């Protein structure tokens, strides 16, 4: 089903004209409201009136995640605080979170684009939607919540965790749509099997997944073990949260809500735009955001675009499933983790040199395990097992407070890290989340 037929099936020439108009307005909004953009325009001798159409997009400066950190917490907002009705946050590259905000108008757009993604997956007002993404500062839970309500579906706002209760509610409430990360879908299938519950026999029919990369084999596993049709969706809090793009019934790419989000693919090295079909970094300029009018935001996600019309009738371009990152960001249990965040935690703990390795794996079922190996140098060593255990749990606590997720800290002998994997290798991701088939060897 198409939620907004006028917008989603608009001829591309009309869509581009609309995007051009919105871009001109948005550039003015960014320039007038955000000192950072005024500065960047001045630095390159650019004025808002130089941006007259879509073709001028490449004149605009980029925005990066670091800009959020440098302008923490509200320096990028273009409206007075009283117009802000919601704040969300995700992890930043260091200790401070990435803060995003919404006006009333932004909330209207958000629920519209989420409703579109749900409708594209076949969700209707007759469905019961269980939302198992985290509620709170994370955009996943509340974003889908508002979208599903807007669609008229019945929302079961369970949030993340408490798997046994999730399984009970799916059965008792006749839940038909399950919104969760793909790894949680597999995890819940395992738990249900252990409890003797066959999820394929429930009313569940659609899975709405996102917040982390996943492979085709995971899709097949979700399909067979839960007996549902899994849909990929894409979004990021800096842009809006969930709702940037999502699959339709043809599962041949994720339709981007281009009337709200202007996309480009660039070569991350040269920063030059690439033609349709070529792989590169996804850059997004939100066209209607009032609170946070970012210009050319570098997502760090690698994908390619396909503007051909889709058999579903939508003219909105499709992006391929994200196939990698331009940086070292990891996504662990749906949470963005930068190795630099872990490094800054280790530096805060007195005496701990940043000799560490981050290991991510899925050894226990489908859920991600995050381990941080820290070398015990003479600076932190003491002939006191209590002291070392205290250090271990102190680092675990600091990581939980900074990143919001649990990591297991393992104290290891010095030089074992360099010996086994070469000094530069700080991150070992054994999950193969992008389906490249590369699975690094165990460090042992």
């Amino acid at each position: 089903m198409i939620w907004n037929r006028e917008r989603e099936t608009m001829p591309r020439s009309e869509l581009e004209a609309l995007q051009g108009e919105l871009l001109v307005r948005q550039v003015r909004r960014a320039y007038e409201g955000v000192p950072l953009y005024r500065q960047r325009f001045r630095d390159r001798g650019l004025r808002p009136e130089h941006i007259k159409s879509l073709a001028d997009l490449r004149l605009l400066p980029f925005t990066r995640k670091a800009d959020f950190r440098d302008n923490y917490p509200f320096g990028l907002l273009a409206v007075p605080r009283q117009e802000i009705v919601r704040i969300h946050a995700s992890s930043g590259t260091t200790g401070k979170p990435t803060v995003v905000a919404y006006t009333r108008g932004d909330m209207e757009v958000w629920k519209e684009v989420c409703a579109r993604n749900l409708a594209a997956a076949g969700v209707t007002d007759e469905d019961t939607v269980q939302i198992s993404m985290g509620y709170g500062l994370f955009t996943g839970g509340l974003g889908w919540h508002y979208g599903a309500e807007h669609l008229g579906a019945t929302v079961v706002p369970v949030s993340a965790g408490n798997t046994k209760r999730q399984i009970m509610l799916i059965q008792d409430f006749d839940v038909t749509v399950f919104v969760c990360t793909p790894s949680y879908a597999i995890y819940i299938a395992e738990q249900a099997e252990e409890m003797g519950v066959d999820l394929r026999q429930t009313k569940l029919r659609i899975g709405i997944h996102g917040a982390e990369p996943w492979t085709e084999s995971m899709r097949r596993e979700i399909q067979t073990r839960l007996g549902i049709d899994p849909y990929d969706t894409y979004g990021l809090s800096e842009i809006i949260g969930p709702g940037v793009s999502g699959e339709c019934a043809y599962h041949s790419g994720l339709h981007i809500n281009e009337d709200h989000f202007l996309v480009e693919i660039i070569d991350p090295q040269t920063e030059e735009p690439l033609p349709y079909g070529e792989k590169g970094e996804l850059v997004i300029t939100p066209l209607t955001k009032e609170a946070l009018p970012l210009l050319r935001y570098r997502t760090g996600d690698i994908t390619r675009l396909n503007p051909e019309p889709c058999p579903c009738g939508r003219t909105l371009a499709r992006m391929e499933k994200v196939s990698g990152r331009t940086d070292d960001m990891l996504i662990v249990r749906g949470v963005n983790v930068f190795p630099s965040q872990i490094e800054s935690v280790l530096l805060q703990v007195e005496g701990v040199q940043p000799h560490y390795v981050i290991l991510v794996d899925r050894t226990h079922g489908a859920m991600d395990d995050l381990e941080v190996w820290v070398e015990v140098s003479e600076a932190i060593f003491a002939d006191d097992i209590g002291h070392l255990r205290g250090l271990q749990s102190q680092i675990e606590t600091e990581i939980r407070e900074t990143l919001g997720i649990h990591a297991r800290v393992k104290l290891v002998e010095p030089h074992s890290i360099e010996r086994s994997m070469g000094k530069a290798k700080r991150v070992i991701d054994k999950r193969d989340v992008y389906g490249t088939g590369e699975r690094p060897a165990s460090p042992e």
Partner: protein
Amino acid sequence: MDIKQLQQVSAFLENRPGRLLYLLNVLAEANINLIAHNIVDASDFGIVHLLVDRPKRALEVIRDAGLTCSITNVIEVVIPNEPGAFVEQVLKPLANAHVNIEYSYAYGVPSSNEAHIILKVDRIERAVEALKKG
């Protein structure tokens, strides 16, 4: 009663097969004699306490082998190897002086009637004083 302050070598090891072998082999190859040892473990790692004939040299070779280690000052008490001696001559005086024992291990010498007790305490001077008084 014979009371001595000794330097013990404490080394950090990961708790997995072969690590103690690696450590003790380093000492053997340097011709350092191990008099006594004990291991305190915290599931995934442990600290090995080594009483050796040449602690300074042991520290060097262990460091050269890439391991983390340090010197810990401990007390060695030699008492008769008979019932009640440890209680009366060591534990009671230390308890009365409010000295806390962090860990302890012991070894006997079969040819003599002696027991050697190694003590790591929180206040070493006070402990030595209390033991001397008896």
